[in-house]
């Protein structure tokens, strides 16, 4: 069975490859990139290294090799975008999709076959380019990167190629024309640009090993995108969809239905629109403004009573996972900092100085409460509310873009900071439990709940995107998932952040001062 499936995937891929290798519009730019780019990279490396060395920045020059190696391999890979973007929609335009869809090949076979075909040729081109570049370095007597590094760059190139192709194929299956697919390609090009910049930063900043983490992250992301594509690959939609129209009416109706749980517009809007033509205000308007407000009041109560708990119930698995991940982040960071941080490097003295620097303690061995007194005036509830809400919003947004990955990473970092902070207090001989109970818990009950709910709903939304849902298009799933997140953010998270900010600004410092009393961070004298 598996063998048969692979043979079918390869059959689809081979046909595509034959098509590509007979198309001069693909071969010509690829050949140019393979032959021209390594020379350009080699020349550029030489000039840059000479220039940098002149100013003694040999460390930077050293990192130029791996960076250029990555660039030399990446440029030919970009061709994969052209091939993959038209994999489905191009065939649909040429009319050759229907015979294939009428054959007994499965969705997975067709999808994976096209994915494979989109990756192979550009990847081979990328490897040839790397090979020529290394050969050039060797001939010029320039330092040749180690074999391990070359291997790492080759793996990185492979995951990047599959990432681009998988994203392009998702676009190709969801577009109605090649033109539309090309326009949507910016959704791949821009994030890929950011990714390459990030990887370049890692190359210059860290050791080569750090790139393996980039490989793992890109591989996970690629897996999620492939899953997204497969989940929403529908033969029917592929042939049935004829035109791309921005249907704002449909968009707002779908969003509103998921957001409010009803298709009826708020009474106040229906009342305002009551004299408009039927096509504009198609729903029955309330008789008076009072009736409209009463209807909305009832609707609002129902929304809180039925819709919000319903959505929270749906996200329960995501909430459990998020809470567990948060706890693991707190505890693992606590124990890491407490046991692994070399005391001789950062002892109580240094920590105390840092505490003073950040306003958490008073200089000259004064009690901690004095430092907190001065800090209290700097904290304001509106600023905290805006900061926390904005942070949760941004985390969720980057989460949506990266299928939850980057959003979750930020969440883990936030939780890890709590663990790390508690460990630092422990190192200062202040009970972490006391700090937690007095300094975090009072507002944290609300703040952390809001953050967890926001992240969980985002995770639930991205999980929905990569899970097949019968009779729903990718657009419908996306809008409905966004509506769910917006609903929870507005109805639950924002009020909780507000309460948390009020407590954090007005109550937590008082409890903390009371709890810490005359505790001193810096030793007297």
């Amino acid at each position, binding site marked *: 069975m598996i063998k048969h499936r692979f043979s079918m995937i390869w059959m689809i891929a081979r*046909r595509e490859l*034959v*098509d590509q290798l007979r198309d001069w519009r693909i071969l010509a730019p690829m050949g140019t990139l393979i032959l021209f780019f390594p020379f350009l990279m080699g020349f550029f490396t030489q000039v840059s290294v000479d220039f940098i060395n002149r100013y003694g920045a040999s460390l930077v020059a050293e990192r130029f090799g791996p960076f250029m190696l990555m660039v030399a391999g990446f440029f030919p890979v970009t061709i994969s975008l052209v091939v993959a973007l038209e994999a489905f929609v191009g065939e649909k335009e040429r009319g050759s999709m229907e*015979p294939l869809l009428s*054959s*007994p090949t499965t969705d997975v076979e067709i999808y994976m076959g096209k994915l494979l075909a989109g990756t192979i040729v550009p990847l081979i081109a990328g490897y040839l380019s790397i090979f020529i570049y290394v050969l050039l370095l060797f001939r010029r007597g320039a330092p040749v990167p180690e074999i391990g590094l070359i291997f790492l760059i080759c793996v990185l190139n492979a995951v990047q190629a599959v990432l681009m192709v998988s994203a392009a194929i998702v676009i190709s299956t969801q577009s109605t024309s090649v033109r539309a697919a090309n326009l949507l390609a910016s959704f791949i090009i821009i994030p890929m640009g950011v990714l390459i910049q990030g990887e370049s930063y890692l190359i210059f900043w860290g050791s080569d090993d750090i790139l393996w983490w980039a490989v793992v992250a890109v591989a996970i992301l690629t897996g999620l995108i492939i899953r997204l594509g497969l989940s929403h690959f529908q033969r029917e939609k592929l042939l049935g969809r004829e035109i791309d129209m921005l249907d704002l009416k449909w968009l707002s109706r779908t969003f509103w239905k998921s957001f409010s749980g009803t298709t009826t517009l708020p009474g106040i809007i229906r009342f305002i629109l009551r004299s408009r033509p039927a096509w504009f205000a198609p729903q029955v308007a309330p008789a008076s403004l009072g009736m409209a407000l009463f209807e909305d009041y009832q609707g609002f109560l129902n929304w809180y009573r039925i819709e919000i708990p319903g959505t929270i119930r749906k996200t329960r698995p995501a909430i459990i996972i998020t809470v567990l991940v948060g706890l693991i982040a707190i505890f693992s960071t606590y124990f890491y900092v407490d046991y692994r941080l070399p005391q001789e490097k950062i002892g109580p003295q240094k920590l105390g100085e840092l505490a003073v620097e950040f306003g958490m303690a008073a200089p000259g061995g004064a009690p901690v409460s004095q430092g907190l007194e001065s800090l209290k005036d700097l904290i304001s509830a509106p600023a905290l509310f805006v900061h926390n809400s904005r942070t949760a919003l941004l985390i969720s947004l980057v989460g949506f873009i990266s299928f939850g990955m980057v959003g979750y990473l930020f969440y883990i970092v936030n939780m890890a900071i709590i663990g790390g902070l508690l460990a630092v207090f422990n190192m200062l001989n202040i009970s972490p439990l006391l700090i937690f109970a007095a300094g975090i818990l009072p507002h944290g009950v609300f703040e952390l709940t809001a953050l967890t709910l926001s992240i969980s709903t985002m995770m639930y939304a991205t999980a929905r995107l990569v899970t097949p849902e019968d009779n729903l298009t990718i657009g419908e799933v996306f809008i409905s998932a966004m509506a769910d997140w917006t609903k929870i953010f507005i109805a639950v998270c924002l009020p909780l952040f507000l309460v948390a900010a009020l407590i954090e600004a007005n109550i937590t410092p008082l409890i903390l001062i009371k709890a810490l009393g005359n505790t001193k961070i810096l030793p007297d004298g």
Partner: protein
Amino acid sequence: MIQCEDLTKYFDSFRAVEGVTLNVEPGEVLAILGQNGAGKTTTVRMLTSILTPSRGWARVAGYDVVKQSQHVRASVGVLTESHGLYMRMTAIEYLNFFGQAYGLSPERRQQRITELLEYFGLADAAKRRSGEYSKGMRQKLALARALIHEPPVLLLDEPTSAMDPESAQLVRTEIARLRSSQRSIILCTHNLAEAEMLADKIAIIYRGRILLAGTFEELRMKLLGPTEYEVTVAGETTPHGLDAIDGLSLTSSGLGWARYTAHHPEQVNPAVIRELVRQEMPVVSLGEVSRTLEVVYLKAMSLAAEGKL
């Protein structure tokens, strides 16, 4: 072999096909006739398990189109509206690809490719890329693709479009041969003469609904009534006295001609000639009034447009 009942397809709120009920036995050709956009392609796509019906059910070659879509696709040969060829592939490569997709062994593929290319007169062009083919050659190659796995069910959309008369005749002969080998065939066409020639049953589809279905005779009887005969005589006189003949019902007449219907034409037509000869009217001709499928179809369309059907 092909059965469907109440087959309905909605695209959002748009009704593409509604309540289609069909039955095509082995060795039968059903022609589906209708305007562009009437729902022919949607029906065919539901029968090939590409589209999921919104309502109703269909079984093709014994398989349910929703639950056993893989089996349905393996049992059906489809000729789509556009030929759907891969232009950079040769005919051999193309047929080999689909032969493999339909699970044929390499030996069987080779055999079928040779047979089909020779039958359709493409053997000489077998190693040329299909992008270099004429329209007719492309259509023949697409038909060869539909036949590569010798399916028990064939769904053919305009099989002879763009073909020269000889090639079209070749395809028609092949369809007739397939029918005699107990294949079930659905033929979607605008070529009414071809449908009349090949189809055992005809279904006329209008705005997603089947208006009429049955044999050509049944359709003709339903829409145009019993067979009409026309007698013409020389000179500028109207044939008269014909309505006195037993079993003849005069429908219309004019200078030099008269039309009538008869339940027993074998008795009535000689009596008509005898009567005209008796009146010394020189008979020029006597025959059936032309009632081709085209006449039937156009009548159906006009009645449908008026809401009378």
